[in-house]
C-alpha cells in the first residue's frame, strides 16, 4: 500500500516540478532522480541479493564516458549511445561476477574495490578519455533540434530515471528477485530448491551495472562535463551510503537517500566543511540503530496492518 502511495508522490513531484520549481531546484530534483536510479542498482544488488559492490561509480563511468565517446568517435547519437554504453557496463558487470561470484560474497567487495581503482586509473591515463582533464559532454540532438535547455535535460533525465527505478522495482518483486532474496536468506535452502547461485548472483551484478550505466549516462547530460574525480572509490562509497540511509530494501529508499544527500548540504550551508563528515557519521549511526534505513519509518504502517490482518485471519479461522 505504502509502495503505491510513494510512487504517486514521486511522480507528482517529478511532473509538477517544472511548473513550480525554480531553475536551481529543478536541476537538483533532476540530480536526485538520476542519483536514485544509479543507487537503485545497488539496492538490487545489496538489499535483494545481499552482495556488496564498491564499483557502482565505475559502471556510471562506463555508461557516461562510453556514451560520450561513442558520440564523438562513431557519431552515434547520445540517446542511442547511452543504452548501448549501459549494455556494455552490464556485460562488464556480468564478466566480473562470472569471474568471482563462485566465491563468498566478501570477495566481490574486494574485487569491485580493485576494479574501481583500475577504472579510475585507466580514465586518468588514457588520451581518449581526456586524461585527468576530463571531457565535455556534447548536447543531445533529436530530429534536428538541440535539446540543451535545462527543461529538456530535466525531462530526459527524469524519464530515464523513472524507467530505471520502475524496472528495478518490478525486478525486486519478480520471480528473479524472489529467488535472489531466498538465496540471501538461506543459500543452502535456495540452492537445494534449484536456484543456480552463481548465475543468479552474476545476473544481479550485471543488472546493477546496467542501472548504474544507464542512469549515469543521463546524469552526464545534467552535469555537462565528465571529471575523472567523479569516478573514484570515494564516490562509490557515497552511493553505498545513500542506499543505507534511505533503506536498502526498496527503490523508495534509494530516492529518499538521494534526496537527503542532495538537499541536506544546501540547508546546512554554514557547515559545508563538516558536511561529508556529518553525513557519514549519520550513516554509521543509522546502520546501528535503524539498519533498514529511513524508509522503515513508513513500514511501521505495513507491519501494523500485517499484524491486524493476521489477528483478523486468526479470528476467522
Amino acid at each position, binding site marked *: 500500500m505504502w509502495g503505491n502511495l510513494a510512487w504517486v508522490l514521486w511522480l507528482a513531484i517529478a511532473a509538477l516540478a517544472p511548473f513550480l520549481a525554480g531553475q536551481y531546484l529543478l536541476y537538483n530534483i533532476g540530480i536526485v532522480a538520476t542519483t536514485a536510479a544509479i543507487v537503485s542498482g545497488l539496492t538490487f544488488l545489496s538489499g535483494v541479493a545481499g*552482495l556488496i559492490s564498491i564499483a557502482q561509480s565505475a559502471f556510471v563511468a562506463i555508461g557516461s564516458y562510453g556514451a560520450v565517446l561513442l558520440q564523438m568517435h562513431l557519431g552515434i547519437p547520445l540517446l542511442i549511445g547511452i543504452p548501448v554504453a549501459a549494455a556494455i557496463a552490464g556485460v562488464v558487470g556480468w564478466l566480473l561476477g562470472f569471474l568471482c561470484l563462485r566465491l563468498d560474497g566478501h570477495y566481490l567487495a*574486494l574485487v569491485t*574495490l580493485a576494479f574501481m581503482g583500475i577504472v579510475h586509473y585507466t580514465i586518468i591515463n588514457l588520451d581518449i578519455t581526456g586524461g585527468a582533464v576530463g571531457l565535455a559532454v556534447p548536447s543531445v540532438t533529436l530530429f534536428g533540434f538541440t535539446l540543451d535547455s535545462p527543461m529538456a535535460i530535466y525531462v530526459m533525465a527524469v524519464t530515464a530515471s523513472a524507467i530505471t527505478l520502475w524496472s528495478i522495482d518490478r525486478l525486486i518483486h519478480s520471480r528473479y528477485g524472489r529467488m535472489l532474496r531466498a538465496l540471501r536468506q538461506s543459500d543452502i535452502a535456495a540452492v537445494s530448491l534449484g536456484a543456480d547461485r552463481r548465475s543468479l548472483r552474476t545476473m544481479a551484478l550485471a543488472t546493477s551495472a546496467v542501472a548504474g550505466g544507464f542512469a549515469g549516462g543521463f546524469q552526464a547530460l545534467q552535469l555537462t562535463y565528465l571529471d575523472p574525480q567523479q569516478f573514484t572509490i570515494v564516490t562509490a562509497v557515497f552511493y553505498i551510503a545513500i542506499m543505507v540511509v534511505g533503506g536498502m530494501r526498496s527503490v523508495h529508499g534509494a530516492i529518499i537517500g538521494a534526496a537527503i544527500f542532495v538537499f541536506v548540504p544546501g540547508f546546512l550551508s554554514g557547515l559545508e566543511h563538516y558536511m*561529508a*563528515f556529518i553525513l557519514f557519521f549519520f550513516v554509521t549511526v543509522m546502520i546501528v540503530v535503524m539498519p533498514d534505513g529511513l524508509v522503515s519509518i513508513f513500514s511501521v504502517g505495513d507491519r501494523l496492518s500485517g499484524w491486524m490482518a493476521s489477528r483478523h485471519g486468526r479470528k476467522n479461522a
Partner: protein
Amino acid sequence: MVSTFIQLLLSGAIAGSVYALLAIGLVLIHNGTGVVNFGFGDQLMVGVYILVFAQQFLGLALPPAILVAVIVSGLLGLAIQSLVMMPLRNRPVLIPIVATIAIGAALREGVRAFMGPNPWPVPFLLSTSPYRIGGISIVPSDLAILGTAIVIMACLYVFFEFTRYGQAILAACANPTGALIVGIPAGTTTTGIWVLSSMLAAIAGIVIAPLTTLTPDIGLIAIKGFAAAVLGGFASLPGAVVGGILLGIIEALAGYYISSAMKDIVSYAILIGVIVLLPSGLFNRVSVRKV
C-alpha cells in the same frame, strides 16, 4: 645490473614488510569476526594524524607521540568494536561490512574537516642519508621500517604462540563455537582483536607515512594490505607476511622494469587476479564448504 636488481628486491621487501603489517591487521579481524574491515586504511590514517597532532599541537617528542598515537588508535578500535561492531554481530555479514565502509568514510571526512585537505609533514624514524655498501645504497630510515616490522611480527609471534590470551584469540579465530564451548569468552577475544589490529594500523601508518604524503586519502594504501592478504589466502598470519613481502617485491620490479604507472595498478591487478585464479591464495589448498 645485478646491484640494481638487489636494490629493487631490498626496497620491495621494505615496502612489503609494511604491507605485511597491514595484511596481518586485516586477516586478524577477518578470522576473528568474519568481516573484511574496509575502514582499516582510514584507521591507519587517523593513527598518523594523531602522531602529527601530538607533535605539533601538544609539543611531544617523537617517542611519546608515537606511544600516544598507538594507544589512542587502540582505543578507537575499542570504540568501533563496542559501539558499532558488537551490536551488529548477529546481523548478516553484509551489514557489518557496510558499517566498516561507513566508519572509514566518516574518519576520513572527519580528519579532512578538522585537519584540512593539505599534506602534513611526518618525521622519519632515522636519518635519510644513505650508506653505500658494495654498490647498494642503504638508508637508515628504510632499515627502521624493516626493523620495526620485524620486531612487531616477532612480538605477535610470541604473543600468539606463548601467551594464554594469544592462544585464546587463535582458538576463537579457528573455531568460534568450539572456543565458546571450552570457555573462551567470545566478546573479550573479539575486542582484543579489534584493539590489536587498530594498533597495528597505526604502527604501519607511522612507518610508511614519511615515504608518501600524509593527506586524509593516505588510507587508500590499505589496498596493498588487501592484496597482500589475498595473496596469502586471507586466512593465515604467516601467509599474510609472505604475501606482503611478495607484493612489495612484485611492485618494485613492475615499477622499474615495466613502467612507474604500473606500480599503482599492480596491487589492484593482483587483487583481482589472485581472487579469480587462486581464490585460496598461493599457499592453501581449496577448502570446499560442505552443508
